C-alpha cells in the first residue's frame, strides 16, 4: 500500500540489435512471472523500438500496461521499464545513470562486444542502480566506484591521488603492523 507510491522499476534490459539478450534484470514477478513472459515482452518491446535510434536523449514507448524508456548504444538498446503511471522522468533518470555508468566503466564504448566482455561490470552496475525495484543510486560516478570496489562515494579513483612517498609510507605502516602480530 505504502509501497505503491514509491517509484518502482519493473525491469532493466539490454538487448542487442537482433533483439537478443545481453543482460536482463526483472524486478516485477507479477508482471513477468516466468521466462516465457519475459521473452514475449522483450520480443514485443524490441519490435516496437528497433527502428528508433536514440543515442543522445531517452525515447519512450507505451506498451500494454508498462512504459519503457530507452537509449541506443552502437548496436545495443538499453531499456528501463516501469508501470504506466510512473513518472517517465524518474525512469529516464535511472536510464541516464545506467548509460553514464557504462560510459565510465567501458571508456565510452557501449557495444555488444564490449558489454559481453565486461559482463561482470554490467551486471554489477545494474545491481547497484536498482535494488528489488527500488532506485538505489542514480549518481553515475558513485555507481562506477562501487562496481570497481574503489569506495562507496562519488569521489574520483583513489589510486591516482596517492603519490609515491605516500605509498611507501603506507606500505611501511602495514608492514610494521603485521610484524607486530
Amino acid at each position, binding site marked *: 500500500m505504502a509501497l505503491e507510491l514509491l517509484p518502482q522499476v519493473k525491469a532493466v534490459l539490454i538487448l542487442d540489435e537482433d533483439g537478443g539478450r545481453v543482460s536482463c534484470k526483472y524486478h516485477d514477478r507479477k508482471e513477468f512471472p516466468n521466462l516465457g513472459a519475459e521473452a514475449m515482452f522483450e520480443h514485443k518491446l524490441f519490435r516496437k523500438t528497433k527502428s*528508433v535510434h536514440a543515442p543522445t536523449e531517452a525515447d519512450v514507448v507505451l506498451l500494454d500496461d508498462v512504459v519503457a524508456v530507452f537509449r541506443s548504444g552502437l548496436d545495443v538498446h538499453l531499456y528501463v521499464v516501469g508501470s*504506466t503511471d510512473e513518472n517517465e522522468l524518474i525512469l529516464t533518470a535511472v536510464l541516464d545513470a545506467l548509460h553514464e555508468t557504462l560510459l565510465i566503466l567501458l571508456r565510452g564504448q557501449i557495444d555488444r562486444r564490449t558489454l559481453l566482455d565486461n559482463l561482470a561490470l554490467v551486471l554489477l552496475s545494474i545491481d547497484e542502480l536498482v535494488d528489488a525495484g527500488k532506485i538505489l543510486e542514480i*549518481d553515475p560516478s558513485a555507481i562506477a566506484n562501487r562496481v570497481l570496489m574503489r569506495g*562507496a562515494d562519488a569521489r574520483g579513483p583513489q589510486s591516482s591521488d596517492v603519490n609515491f612517498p605516500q605509498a611507501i609510507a603506507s606500505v611501511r605502516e602495514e608492514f610494521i603492523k603485521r610484524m607486530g602480530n
Partner: protein
Amino acid sequence: MNSSEDLYRANSIRVLSRIIDATMLGAIERYLKQAIVDKNSLVSSSALVSGILLYKISPEVVRRWVNEVTEGVSSQHEMVQYHALSLLYQIKAHDKLAVSKLVTQLSKSPMRSPLAVCLLIRYMSKILHDDISATNARAAYQFLESSLRHRSDMVMYEAARAICNLPGVEMNDLSPAINVLQMFLTSVKPALKFGTMRTLSEVAAKYPMSILKCNSDMEVLISDPNRSIATLAITTLLKTGSEGSVDRLMKQISSFMNEIADEFKIVVVKAIRQLCLKYPLKHRVLVGFLATFLREEGGFEFKKAITDCIVELMTAIPETKEMSLFHLCDFIEDCEFTALSTQILSLVGELGPSTSAPARYIRFIYNRVILENAAVRAAAVPALAKFAARLPSLRPSIRVLIKRSLLDEDDEVRDRATVALTLLGDNDGEDEAGADALVEGGHGAEETKGDGPATAGPPLGKPTTAHLLLEALPMSFSSLEKAVKAYHQHMPATAGQPLVLSSLPVVEEVAVPTGIVAKGAGKDGRSGSASAAEVAPDDPAEHVYKVPELERLGRVFRSATPVELTESETEYVVRCVKHIMDGYVVLDFTISNTIEEQMLRNVTVEVEQSDPDLYEVEASVALPELKCGDTGHAYVVLKLAEGNAAEPAAFSCELKFQALDVDPATGLLEGDEDEEGFEEEYPLEQLNIATADFMAKVSLGDFRRGWEQMGAEAEVLEKFALGFKRLQEAVAAVEDFLGMQTCDGTGSVAAGKKEHALHLCGIFVGNVPVLVRAQLNVDPQAGCILKIAVRSNQPDVSRMVADCIQ
C-alpha cells in the same frame, strides 16, 4: 558487516536482508540501526532499502528504528534522504494523522533530493485524494504549486501531474500546472513530451476547456517522430477540438494514419467515436472517414473496433443508419474476417428491412451466399429470411434465392434454408399481419445446434404455434446456457415437464464489475477476462438440493444475498441466505463455530415471527454436529400462508444447540461419546423478508417494446416523497427497494441533472415479469419526488411491487 570497509558493510547488509528471517533479525538489528545513521551514504542507503524489504517480514522490528530513520531524512546525502523518507512513510502509513504531520512538516523545509521531493508530492496528493476537505488542504495545494517552480524537470512534472489528478480541482488551481505542461510540450526530451501529453490527454477527458491554449502546441506534435506522442496529441486534440476544426483535423489524421501501428489506430477510432457523439452534425464527415479506414489494410482488432464504432453510432445517431449500413455492406464485399461478416449480416437483416430502399441490400447479402464460406452463408440465409418476412413485396423473389441454398454443401446452411422456406411458404397466403408471426428461424436453428438433443427448443416445424420470428430471444445466449445447465443439474425437481423457455430456472444477471478505467487497451482486455473468471459463481442453492428433506419443495426460484446475523468476531458466526421457492421460503443458516473448547450438536435455529398469519414454519432441518473451525448449514422451511403472496415480515431468530466440551489440543471429546452436553441458546439479530427478495434481477430484452406489449391493464401508479438530496442516491435506493434490474443504462445519472427517468425490470416469483418506470425529481428544498408506474400481468403483483417503496 562489521568490516571497516564501507563497501563490505553496505553489501553485506544488502545480502543479509535478502536471506534473513524474522527470528534471525533480532541478532543483527543493532548493527542495522547503527548502519542507518552511518556517515557513509551507501551504508546508510543500503540499511534503509533493506529496511523496506524487511518491513514485509517483521514490521514490528522495523518500526523500532523510527528515530534513526527520522534522522536519515535530514541527511546530507540525496539518496539517503530519499530512502529514509520512503521507509519512514511506510512505517507510519497506517496512521493517517502521523503521515499528515510528517508530510506537512517536511514540505516546509525544502529537501535536496529531487527524488525525495517527488515522493513527498505523491504522499501529499494521496492525502488530498483521501480527504479533499482536510483542514490543511490549502497548504498542501500551495506546496504542490510551489513545486511547479522547482529547478528539476522531474519535480515540476510530478507536481503538475499531481495537481491535474486532484479530485474536483478548480479551474484556477489547474491553470499554473497547465502552463508548466504547455512549456514542456516544446521540450526536446521525448520522455518529457510523452509524459506531458499523457497528462494532458487525461485532463482533456475531464476538463477539455482548460487546455485549449495548448492546442497549437499539440498540433505541432502530430508530426512528432515518436508515434506514441503523435497519437496522444491527436486523440487529445479530438477531445478538445471545436466543431469548426473537425474537418481540418480529419485531413491531418488521414495523412498520418497510414504510418502508425494498429493499436494506435484503434485509439484514434475510439476518439473519433467520442467526437462524433459530441458533434452529431459532423457525422457525415466522421462516418465517411471511418469507412475509408474500413477499406484500407488492417488487422482484425482494428476492423472490429471500426465496425463496433459505426454500429454504436448508428444506434446513437439515427441519421447515420442508412449511410453506415451501406458502408458496412461495402466492407463485407471484401472482408477476410468471418466473425465480422456474420455480425454485419445479422445487423443488416435486423435493420435493412426498415430502411427506405431495402431491396438494395438483397444483392449484398446474396453475394455472400454465392461467394463466402459456410459460416457466412449460414448467417446470410436468416438475414434474407428476415427481409422476406418483413417485406411481402420481396417475398417471392427471396424465396427463389433461398431455395438455391437448399443444395448447399454445408448442413447448417441447408437446415437454415429449409426452416426459412417452410415458414415463409406456409405464411404465403396469409395477410400482412400474419407475416410477422413467423418462427424465429435463425435463432431456433442455433439453439438446437448449441444445446444438443436435451433441448427440444421451441417447436420448430409448426408455424401455427410459432414464436415470433423477428423477436430476439428473451434472454442472452449466455444466460440461456446457464439456465439450461442449471435445469440439467436439478433434473429430479422438474422431471416430466416439457422444457420450454418459461420453465427454465431464472438466471440472475451478475453485475460484472466494470473495473477501474483501464489505462491501456491491453489492460482492459485482461482485467475483463480476469473478472469474468472470478465472477463465475457457484450456485448458492447448490447444497439445498442435496438435503433430502428439502427436495420435494421444487426448484429454488432465486437466492437472496447473504445477511449477517451476528458480528463477524463473535463466538458463533451465523449468516442467512433466503432461498425463494414457489410457495415456500427456505432460510439457509450458515453457522461457524469459533470456540476451540466446544463442539456443537444438534444445532437448530428457532425463528419467531412478528405476524403469525403470514408464514408458517413447516420444517426445520438441524445440523447434527459442528466442530470448531467448521461451517455447516441448518435450514428452516417457511410456508407462505394462504392469501399471502409475498408480504414483508420480520423474524427474531435464536440459535439452539447442545455444547460439548472438547480438548482443544487433540480435538477429541472430553466426556463420553454419548454425553448429552448442556443446552444453550444464543440470540441472533432480526431477520427480515422483504418483497424485493421475491424479485429476480433479470433483464427482459427491449424495455420499450415490453412495456407496450404488457399494456396498462394491470398498471399501478404511485407517487412518493423520498428524503434524498442527491439524485444518484435516490436512484440507488429505488433499485434497492425493488430489487430489480435497470435497463437501457438508466441506472446512472448524468451529473448536475435535476430529474431522471429510471427503467427497471425483473421477474417476480411464479415467473411473473414486472416492468417499472420511475420518474425522479430532486428539489433541494422539498427533497425527492418519485412517480412510479408498475406493469405486470397480475394486478396484485403490480400493487405489491409499488408498495415496496418505503
